[in-house]
């Protein structure tokens, strides 16, 4: 079944007189690797905020697995497997990576409201967390508070949080922003190793990454979808070249 996993219908978001998102209708199939590109200020992050419920659309609807999720709050969307990363790292600063990931796993497994059993009791309980953190080069920082981690490690933890949730749809908002080259390799490998049925929407400025990762690309300009297609088509598209590559030259 090539059912649509995530779809938007005529999504609009206005901030006063500014239309940040204009009539966006997007459809992602199961297991699709979609990139969302566009110049700065095109409204990419706004779209992610709308999809995850951090913003309420002015009009339009969002469907996840055929259900209208437009009225659902963020945590319920996350519980349905719609998970995001943040462009600006959002961590729990007083928690360690091990505690953070153990918490994400507990919430994913619906035991987050348990009152009695310790979250981090012994190594056995947190095997999954420790393993995931090790694959993302955080194995030597398991018990350091997130606040004191260096920037690169904080970015990796940001990604680890999303992966620990075992998403069904993963929205990556510039996951490589500011990550040193050595570590961006790790992130890309981890993303490439995601199960085939995970649907991914990737926002990224690095065109090499976009063309390597995505099977389809959507181009967002001034809050509206300008064009959508296979990477080759997008690369050839004169409109895209004018708007996107033109901007890149001056950036």
């Amino acid at each position, binding site marked *: 079944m090539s059912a649509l996993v995530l779809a938007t219908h005529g999504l609009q978001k206005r901030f006063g007189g500014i239309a940040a998102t204009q009539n966006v209708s997007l459809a992602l199939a199961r297991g699709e690797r979609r990139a969302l590109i566009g110049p700065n200020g095109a409204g990419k992050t706004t779209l992610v905020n709308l999809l995850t419920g951090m913003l309420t659309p002015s009009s339009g609807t969002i469907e996840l697995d055929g259900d209208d999720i437009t009225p659902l709050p963020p945590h319920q969307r996350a519980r349905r497997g719609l998970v995001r990363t943040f462009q600006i790292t959002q961590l729990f600063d007083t928690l360690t990576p091990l505690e953070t990931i153990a918490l994400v796993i507990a919430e994913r497994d619906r035991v987050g409201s348990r009152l009695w059993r*310790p979250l981090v009791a012994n190594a056995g309980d947190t095997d999954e967390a420790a393993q995931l953190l090790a694959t993302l080069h955080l194995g030597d920082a398991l018990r350091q508070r997130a606040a004191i981690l260096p920037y690169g490690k904080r970015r990796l933890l940001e990604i680890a949080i999303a992966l620990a949730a075992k998403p069904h749809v993963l929205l990556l908002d510039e996951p490589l922003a500011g990550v040193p080259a050595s570590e961006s390799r790790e992130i890309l490998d981890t993303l490439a190793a995601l199960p085939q049925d995970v649907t991914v929407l990737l926002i990224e400025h690095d065109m090499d990454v976009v063309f390597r990762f995505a099977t389809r690309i959507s181009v967002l300009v001034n809050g509206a979808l300008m064009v959508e297609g296979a990477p080759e088509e997008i690369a050839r598209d004169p409109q895209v070249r004018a708007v996107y590559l033109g901007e890149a030259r001056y950036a």
Partner: protein
Amino acid sequence: MESLPTRKAIEPARIRAWEIVVWLIALAMWFVAPKYAPLLNEIAILALFAVSLDLILGYSGIVSLGHAAFFGTGTYVAALFAKHVIPDPIVGLLAAVAVSTLLGFLTSALVLRGTDLTRLMVTLGVALILYELANRFDNITGGADGLQGVVTGPLFGTFAFDLGGRVAYLYSLTILFVLFMLARRIINAPFGYGLRAIRDNPRRAAAIGIPVNRRLIAVYTLAAAYAGTAGALLAQTTNFASLDALDFHRSADVLLALVLGGVGWLYGGILGTVAFKLMHDFISALTPQYWQFWIGLVFVVLMVAGRDRLSAGMRRLLRIGPTRTGTER
């Protein structure tokens, strides 16, 4: 922040030697300082109150200037229950907890949203309202004179509360110990980590599927139950309830004591209360009328110099408590 950044934190759920020492000292005081039983009893009660505040302030980031609302509710319910229903302390305690829990649940919606300022004002407002209600309905509460003629029955029908306050201290200490250990369990469980996650970053907490509002309602209600218990203990061990239990100074004092001991660290409530009480007694013995001047000065220095830095240094000296410092907000 000068903590010990590279030193590995010990798994927090394990009970450490110094914790046992703290509780043994508390128990030993019953034997070695019988004369001070009333003071110790008061400290145990206020420590429980501070632990209650720590659950919402330290762990969940909900600031409150009206936590006495729940404390005072517990006090009045326990006193009225003993006077008009049955004098048994355990049943009275449960009744007081039930009412303060309900009050916590009903008012929790008011602190879900908004900034620290709105939360401060709303909690302050709720406590003021209760204070005036208790003042106004003096036919029930005794108003400004306090509720007289409360007699708490013997514990388990056997151990009568003596004038020396020794039964009282043991009673309060036991309740403090049980509720403290329960709170300790809770904050090391997923629920407790979820609270810290909400405190640190509510947006991210919601993004990993944490129902932020529901969790805040739960912890606010729990804290109200704890505060109500503390208030009830006060009424039962003093056979008295007065407007003082709902007064603003109660909300302020418990906040000062908790900050003194350290927020987001359950023992901070106990140690802070001990320190605050000793400081209070020491300074007011030296200068009865002006003790607030010195307490005020201590807190100004504390906040300016940074509570974290001072207490981290102190903990390093004593080698107790978390090696990680508290929140950085």
